[in-house]
């Protein structure tokens, strides 16, 4: 079977998505727990959660861009 750039790029993107996937799962899970335990702090927790998601997600998105760059 021939190994193509597209296939390698797809595999690399898959690998790159593992870390952020675990990260976002853990982050949101903990935030939900925090909101459930202390509903009055929900607004603050939510803002911080989105911020954290934005930072973690950047890694996955860079992987997504590299996927297209690597195809060529």
């Amino acid at each position, binding site marked *: 079977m021939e190994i193509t750039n597209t296939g390698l790029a797809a595999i690399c993107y898959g690998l790159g998505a593992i870390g952020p996937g675990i990260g976002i799962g853990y982050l949101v899970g903990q935030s939900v727990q925090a909101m459930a335990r202390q509903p009055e702090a929900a*607004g*603050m927790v939510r*803002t*911080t959660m*989105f*911020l954290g*998601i*934005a930072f973690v*997600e*950047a890694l996955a*998105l*860079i992987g*997504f*861009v590299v996927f*297209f760059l690597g195809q060529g």
Partner: protein
Amino acid sequence: MFALHFPPLGHIVDWPGFAGTEGAWYEVNKVVLVYLFALILTCLIFVLGNKKQLVPTGAQNLAEISVEFIDQQLIEPTVGHNERKWLPPFMLSLFFFIFFTNIFEVVPVIQMPANARIALPMFLALFSYVIYHGSGFKEHGPIGYLKHAVVPPGVPKAMLPLVMVIEFVSKFLVQPFSHTVRLFANLLAGHILLVTFAVLSAGLWTTEWYAVFLPLPAFAVVFFTAFEIMVSFLQAYVFTLLFGVYFGAAVSHEH
């Protein structure tokens, strides 16, 4: 067997110009039109929201809710107590401009998020970059701001050189890059997702037996359209929130 013709990536986000000279900087294509629409809509919020009735109606209602939203959800947690008069209107227009350029992803006929081309996110990120670092330099003075930016409080002396390099690279080089890519890649991914399922649906629109699978991608298109409405709001929120965080970090006085 499905005879799918998935368009190459260039075709998904490239639009032929229909006014101006081919290839010139003032050539007008669909993306430029989306910029213009978004600009007009953002200005309309300011114009229509400017009425001062005691009981708000229509556009004034929306304007008041969004000003409150910007104040309480975006500025309060990031910058804290804010005395700069220009900051809320700036963040309001940033938020609405990004939201409107994003939402054209799901508007029928247009269906093109302007932020799926890197030009606009890059411009907005560099614009924010100049504003928050400029404000930091104004607040702390040139040397003071560099020290404020690269030397975090409470770091042991031995670690300082390493931390300074990391902080400098992350604050001055990586920050605008990730700010850009976050908005750009999210919208591009959403657009490709919608195109994929639309192409699948079109491929299954046949008289062969496998047309029975047509409801699956057709339902996916509807579902992801709803999802993308949420994403356009969320990305506008995140972009503005991050501007607030960077701005707050640049002008803070805690240490």
